[in-house]
């Protein structure tokens, strides 16, 4: 059996040799025939024109082809940008988030322990109240605020959850929590967007730059000099908060919607960019909001009432927003009435 096979192979090899020997005669008609390195019988390299992975990646930065299954986006064969996404998410983002959030907490703690709370001056409380935010304004504020706090916690969970929380509660409990956190993040995004839009409508009029802003900014709001620069309804710091919420919130909304509806508005690389923007603006806004929460609660005596009951002490209002109080008093002939209601939608 074995001998028979060897005989057969020998004849086969001889026959092949004959064909190869006669080949140059026919090859004369064709172009230059390069001898193939490994004995390809045609003598040509049939892949000379074929696409090369390295070349395509160099020229196009990704490999995109055609596919015969209905899922058209699967035609993207290779996207090395995934590596940059990973570098951002696991390398850059935790640092940005950590520095922004911890940095703000440390700065506020330093301020609190050196300067303390900003207190009312003795005997300054007049006992008379003035309405600062009406029900609609307070509803809008708390709608947006509660949504933002949940969105912030669940958002930060995507970054730090597996580093900080998972070791404490174990992978199963952490996955269950993260699943609900994801649902909360995806669904509370909608009332948040609504809140940002109402805020824009309700407060934009009072947040346009005015003549008091420059002085306020120059004296840094009087935080360090214990002075009280004049301001209208909102001082320049509050205006900065407003605009960072409105513009930041809109950027978060737009990029969030891109990610909520995969491939509806952007391709894969577009969604990666949406997350870059979403995450960076998100953590910066969280840092800003921590400062906002601080100054609106423990940081300044009397400030919380504005969003709590809606009414603030008249003396506090005069000290912090003199121009606004005068404007309100001018509207109503008989002075700073506790029951006086400002014009709606202010």
């Amino acid at each position, binding site marked *: 059996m074995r001998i028979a096979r060897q005989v057969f192979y020998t004849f086969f090899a001889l026959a092949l040799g004959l064909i190869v020997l006669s080949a140059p005669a026919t090859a004369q008609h064709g172009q230059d025939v390069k001898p193939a390195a490994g004995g390809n019988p045609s003598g040509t*390299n049939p*892949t000379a024109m074929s696409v*090369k992975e390295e070349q395509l990646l160099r020229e196009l930065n990704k490999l995109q*082809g055609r596919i015969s299954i209905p899922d058209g986006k699967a035609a993207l064969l290779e996207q090395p940008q995934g*590596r940059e996404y*990973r570098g951002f998410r696991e390398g850059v983002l935790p640092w940005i988030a950590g520095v922004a959030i911890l940095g703000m907490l440390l700065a506020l703690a330093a301020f609190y322990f050196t300067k303390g709370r900003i207190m009312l001056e003795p005997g300054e409380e007049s006992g008379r109240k003035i309405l600062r935010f009406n029900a609609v304004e307070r509803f809008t504020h708390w709608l947006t605020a509660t949504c933002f706090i949940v969105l912030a916690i669940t958002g930060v969970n995507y970054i730090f959850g597996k580093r900080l929380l998972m070791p404490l509660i174990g992978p199963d409990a952490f996955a269950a929590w993260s699943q609900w956190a*994801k649902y909360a993040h*995806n669904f509370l995004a909608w009332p948040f967007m609504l809140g940002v839009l109402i805020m824009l409508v309700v407060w934009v009029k009072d947040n346009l730059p005015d003549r008091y802003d420059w002085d306020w900014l120059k004296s840094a709001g009087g935080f360090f000099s214990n002075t009280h620069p004049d301001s209208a309804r909102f001082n320049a710091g509050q205006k900065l908060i407003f605009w960072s919420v409105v513009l930041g919130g809109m950027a978060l909304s737009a990029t969030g919607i891109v990610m909520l509806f*995969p*491939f509806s508005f952007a391709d894969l690389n577009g969604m990666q960019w949406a997350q870059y923007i979403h995450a960076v603006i998100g953590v910066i806004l969280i840092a800003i909001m921590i400062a906002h929460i601080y100054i609106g609660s423990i940081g300044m005596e009397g400030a919380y009432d504005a969003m709590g009951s809606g009414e603030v002490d008249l003396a506090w209002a005069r000290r912090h927003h003199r121009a606004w109080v005068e404007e309100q008093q001018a509207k109503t002939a008989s002075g700073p009435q506790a029951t006086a209601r400002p014009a709606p939608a202010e």
Partner: protein
Amino acid sequence: MARMKFLCDADRCIECNACVTACKNEHDVPWGINRRRVVTLNDGKPGERSISMACMHCTDAPCAAVCPVNCFYTTADAVVLHSKDLCIGCGYCFYACPFGAPQYPRVGNFGSRGKMDKCTYCAGGPEADMSEAEYVKYGRNRLAEGKLPLCAEMCSTKALLAGDGDIIAQIYKERVVKRGYGSGAWGWKTAYRETVAI
């Protein structure tokens, strides 16, 4: 232990999609999910090439790195698997994967994608080997049965190779030497930071 890899010899792939069909059938993969697919580059032009692609089971896998709940793990055979019990369907692994391997049962429902599904290298998941629960979630565990992934086993032209990386690289090198050409191991540089010298 072996270091399992896939290698698609693009000079042999004829885009018959048998690997895709074999995979779908072997694991009862639901409609709309393709753990493996064949992409044709330069379709209809001279130099057209088809490449069968699934999860490449990368070295230092990006999906595992970006997962916010750490649901990925690597087996002793260097196969990258994940737990559908832990997965929250956030989609990050899909953003990070260079090969588009992660698949989701649902799209566009407020981002509720459902549990991620991907090629398991026919190695199942964290459940007990060859259990019913494992089959329902991840499909058949052929590695536990002592077999290689079905896509490669079924390949009509033996373009798709699966097995220990050194061995399949050696087979590919021998082919290249014998026939005199080869367009390289597609995706290897990205997945394994090394390529097959040809």
